[in-house]
């Protein structure tokens, strides 16, 4: 039905079609618009983890673990970029907010995460108190959690 010329033409057309769309478009609904075309699909997407066999029981623990991981990552940046104490705390607040935590000072995993981050950033245990934020909490029980996280 098609000559070789047409095959090449169609193949190229298809190629263009494919590469035009490239990689996966986000299904995130946080931004103003998204690629999910059907309205009901948009709502479906947000209930994904609960209706898709994701274990709700594990969700809280997972959130706590990932939060700790993120706090550690932010702490590495704090040390390596020499951010101010206020900026560091604002960054921790932003991370905490993403995970449904408003009062991160009440959440022990915050300080475990900080300890882990300090170790990864190469801060020696003795010099943790030289960092302004940690100097400010050195007398609180949270500092013990930082050290525990550091040693984990």
């Amino acid at each position: 039905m098609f000559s070789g010329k047409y095959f090449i033409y169609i193949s190229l057309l298809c190629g263009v079609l494919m590469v035009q769309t490239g990689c996966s478009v986000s299904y995130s609904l946080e931004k103003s618009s998204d690629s999910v075309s059907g309205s009901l699909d948009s709502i479906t997407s947000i209930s994904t983890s609960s209706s898709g066999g994701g274990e709700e029981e594990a969700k809280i623990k997972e959130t706590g673990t990932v939060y700790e991981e993120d706090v550690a990552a932010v702490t590495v940046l704090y040390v390596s970029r020499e951010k101010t104490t206020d900026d560091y705390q604002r960054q921790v607040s932003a991370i905490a907010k993403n995970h449904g935590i408003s009062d991160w000072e009440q959440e022990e995993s915050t300080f475990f995460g900080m300890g882990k981050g300090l170790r990864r950033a190469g801060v020696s245990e003795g010099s943790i108190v030289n960092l302004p934020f940690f100097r400010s909490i050195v007398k609180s029980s949270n500092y013990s959690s930082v050290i525990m996280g550091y040693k984990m």
Partner: protein
Amino acid sequence: MRRFLCLLLLVSRLFCPGLLLADEMPEKSSVASIDFLYINANAGEAAGGHTALRLGDAVFHYQFFPDGTFLLVREPWDSFLFLYNELHNRSISIASLPLNFSAAKQIRNHFAELLAEQEHFFRDLEQLYREKRFFQRLLADSFEQPVEALGFFSKQGQSPHLVGLVKRIETTLGAGFLQQLLNEAESKVEQEIVAINRGKRRESSFQEILALREALRVLSENRGLGRLACVPSMQEERSLIADEKVLLKIFSDYLTESIGKLLQSKRPDSGSVILLQTARYLAIQHSLASGRLLTLDPFFEGIRDVQLSREETGDGRLGALQETLLRQSATRRDLFFEEKLHPEIAYSLLETSRARAWELQQVNDVQRSVRILAKVTLPTRPGVVGVAALKPDPEVLHTNLELLEKALEVERKRSKELYGYNLFTRNCATELIRSLNSTFPDSGSGKAVLGAWMEPESGLAFIPFLFYEQSVNAFSLQDEQFIQARRLRNLEILYKQESDLLVWLRESNTLSSTLYQPRSKDTPFLFFTDDSLLLRPVFGIMNVLYGTAYSVAGIVNLPFDGGEHLNQALRGVFYSLPELTFGNIRKGSYSTGENSTDH
């Protein structure tokens, strides 16, 4: 020329998709490995396929966002699997690179750091925008400043519940503590106003101290919740039982302690958190008083909403989704009452899921707009505070705005450089390997850990499926697994249960298929071609003709639907073209309302 050859190779790869078959679902992932994922193509989102890395129980991948940014995303594996494999009906190939525990951990930590860096960048950018809006408001002579979480409180009404809370705070921190703190905050607000009036750029610290002052005023004035602060109790929700009331009181004590500590905290943004925790405290007191669970309304201004069609509100999928969200809300309620380690996370999840369920319950023939809470969302409803003393010189404001615009321009450029998309040089495959490589200081140390080294620019690695194949070869990946797309999986079951011919005749097309319901997202098509290699061009022709006929109807409908049908039809024809050359992109997709365990 190289790119041209790449395109040809890309098309030729369509002739024989699914070379990497293995009939098993993945086992629970081991932490000591990194798994390379290839997700095959489908219409709409990713006709070129997609790649991702699974590290432990999380999947890291790059996605294109509608605002033009191309960002690293982390998702739980089960959510990723459900979305891509179940709903979007795409097959997933997985190959593992076994690593020692510390190497796997190092890689995962590095990806978390990349996410933190990304978050930091966009937070700083947002701060510039916020500052710009602040100065624009002042320039427009509007002295009303929004304060996060203040909008939950009534302006006059007093709450007897707050009296007890304030008493407890003052017992712990001393009588007059709140008043002293309020005086200090008032004085700091004035200092900030003076600084801003003199031309200083202090938006951030001003907003923070203003929020603290407002929080202290709320506590001092015993202000109660506003009338619409909470998501109301739903008929389907049971009343609080005795044990739950006890546990709510315990959480109320947790919040009291939290508020007390926040009042002594040095964190700069404590004000809005005190407001939130106080509002939550009051929501709990109202719950205890009424015997029905109430939580704050987390919907915020500017939240995305969707308009359901009459068709969507009429079919069974809406009901199924309403039930799903109510069930999720009930489960999260139970889990909150059981949670010991992370009470606030559990409470936030409960708040969000109650709001989602309630929102969908409101849908009817008239009310078809639904606000979308995309993820766990802390309630932040802002209230407005008038600060008439803020009167900087307009000239100073203009100068600040100019400075801000310049700073924004620089950051927007950086955003494009750091987080922009490029089909060949910055896509889901190239960024994944670039991110993996950046875990290591150099290629030598990377090779020592990974066993090989791949460059994002090497060969055809920018094409997702070739990236996957190159990774399999380069890293000697093991344990290749293949998770079939949902329809193909169910089709196999049918073939085992019924006559092959009957199943083939019935399920090969969208009109009689029992495994698939046509959806506009998939574009109009007649025959499935993902499971019929030899007949693919014939089916392709039928699909093209079907799409063309649909286009004619689309032209007729043009004045009535603004070209929606025509657009769908043309896209349908386009997705059918690869089928003429034995290729396949479109596979059909699903929504939650469709039961996946029917077969």
